[in-house]
């Protein structure tokens, strides 16, 4: 289980290392609850994840945004030092935009540690796109958003990525983040999530985010698979145990904190429908017709 690494670069490295182990005939089950890169579990039959795979949700969100805004032009704000965001922009969103006949009129590149965004905001002002995609971690996106708002860049819509779905965004973002739409694995206003959030806050003293939910799911999946696998857990049976555990995990179903049943598909992902949320009045609410 990849624990403690939420950075996609590091997560991808672990899966690549697993692929090398499999080639050498000594694979070990790897499970992540955060790595979202499209297709990563195809690297090995021992590769699992229950991350919210944003790529599918962003394609749906782009189509929904196109239907609702009639967008003709789009622009990307993208960090280049984390391949996840560039992959999402170039390999997932761009082809969808092309399919919809939407022209990409600007790409403003940054690195995660950037703190000044005047050139990026100027590029957006010059291009004047209908929609701006935020393909960057939350703090970088927030600082960029503040700068574009100061410079009165006003597209019809900002579409963010899942890392923007945090308490920090609304509490530190204020007016700058109002109206941003993100794809989420769950509806934060659902009663099951509210119950989970209250229990989580009692135990950890923090608000939940997408990784808290998938993290708990991962724990339930692994605990259930260990119980059902019948492994002997001895040095002599290690290789055999790993195969048994892999097979048990692939067949496991658990009830997520979201209230949904979660199990793996043939590619060892846990597909989730996802939904669009918008920041309104300092909270994330479902992006429905009356919240344009």
């Amino acid at each position, binding site marked *: 289980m990849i624990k403690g690494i939420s950075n996609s670069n590091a997560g991808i490295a672990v899966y690549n290392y697993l692929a090398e182990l499999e080639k050498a005939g000594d694979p070990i089950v790897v499970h992540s609850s955060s790595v979202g890169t499209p297709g990563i579990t195809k690297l090995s039959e021992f590769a699992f994840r229950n991350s919210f795979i944003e790529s599918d949700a962003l394609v749906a969100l782009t189509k929904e945004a196109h239907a609702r805004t009639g967008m003709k032009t789009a622009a990307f704000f993208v960090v*280049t*030092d984390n391949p996840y965001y560039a992959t999402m922009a170039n390999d997932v969103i761009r082809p969808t935009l092309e399919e919809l006949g939407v022209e990409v009129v600007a790409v403003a*590149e*940054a*690195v995660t*540690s*950037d*703190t*000044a965004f*005047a*050139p*990026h905001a*100027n590029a957006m002002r010059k291009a004047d796109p209908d929609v701006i995609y935020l393909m960057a971690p*939350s*703090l970088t996106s*927030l*600082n960029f958003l*503040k700068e574009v708002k*100061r*410079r009165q860049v006003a597209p019809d819509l900002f579409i963010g990525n899942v890392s923007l779905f*945090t*308490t*920090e965004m609304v*509490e*530190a973002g*204020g007016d700058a983040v109002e109206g941003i739409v993100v794809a989420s694995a769950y509806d934060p206003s659902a009663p099951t999530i509210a119950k989970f959030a209250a229990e989580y806050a009692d135990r*950890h*003293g*923090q608000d939940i985010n997408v990784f808290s939910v998938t993290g708990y799911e991962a724990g339930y999946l692994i605990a259930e698979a260990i119980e059902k696998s019948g492994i002997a857990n001895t040095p002599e049976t290690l290789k055999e145990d790993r195969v048994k555990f892999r097979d048990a995990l692939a067949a496991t179903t658990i009830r997520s904190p979201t209230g949904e049943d979660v199990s793996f598909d043939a590619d060892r992902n846990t597909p989730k429908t996802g939904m669009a949320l918008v920041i309104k009045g300092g909270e994330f609410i479902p992006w429905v017709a009356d919240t344009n």
Partner: protein
Amino acid sequence: MLFLEYVISGLLSGSAYSLVAIGFTLIFGVLNRLNIAHGATIMVSAFAGAYVSIRLGGAESYAILLLSFSIAVVAGAVLGFLVWATAFAPLSNAAPLAPFITSAALAIVLEETVVVLSRSVPGLLPEFSPFPTPLENLVFFVGPILVRGVHVVIFVVALLLMLSLQWWILRSRTGRAIRAVEENPTAAWLLGINVRRVEIMVFVVASAIAGASGALIGAASGTVNAFMGADLLLTTFVIVVVAGLGSLTGAMVCGLLVGVIETTVVGLVSASAKEAVLFVILFAVLVFRPEGLMTATRFKRD
């Protein structure tokens, strides 16, 4: 016009680098040691200022901003003394690399402490916390060029601090003692100068400046996070080496220069080329003028 905007924007944002570099180079000038905990001092001070502003609701109040700034300066000064007492003073006779390691370790301890506190202290948030100030959205136009009020404040504070420091070091009795210790600590001690007292004074003043930098940088971005100091330290290191280690004027000028280079490279080339350009400049300086662009030949210390 766009180029001019990048230059102005770079000059103003570069003044934050200047502030950080002034404190960093002041400590090196006297102790001949790098204080890697300088970035962490900036970060902790910024958190102290941000916390005051969060608790008192400082989004609209200049009085609270002033209080937050003062708290950050005091926090920086106190932390500076603690850094000196734990990472430098016990190692005064050790190898030059020893305080580099202990101050780096202390920086990690401070960062991790803030990470833990951010999860448990009400008002703070785990990933980053707000620093609400009325300066954040204050903007005005010079012709067609947008200027942020907070950048002007940072520029003015950096300039005032540098002028005050120059006066203090060149004209005051303590300044003369600092210069004597900087040139030759043994000779200064033989002349009756309390070298340890000078070291403490320099640490406290440099760290108070770090506190001011932290508060202003936090106010400029509207957020603080546990690694903001570490992110600044690498660029600051380039600035002080290019300027010449120990040169206050050099730190100020090169901080501004780096701000302009960064902004224009990002605007005209790409964000990923920014650091490459800085390190090419660093490489060129180290090859052709290793003592730095803005220092005379330095005395060799004991």
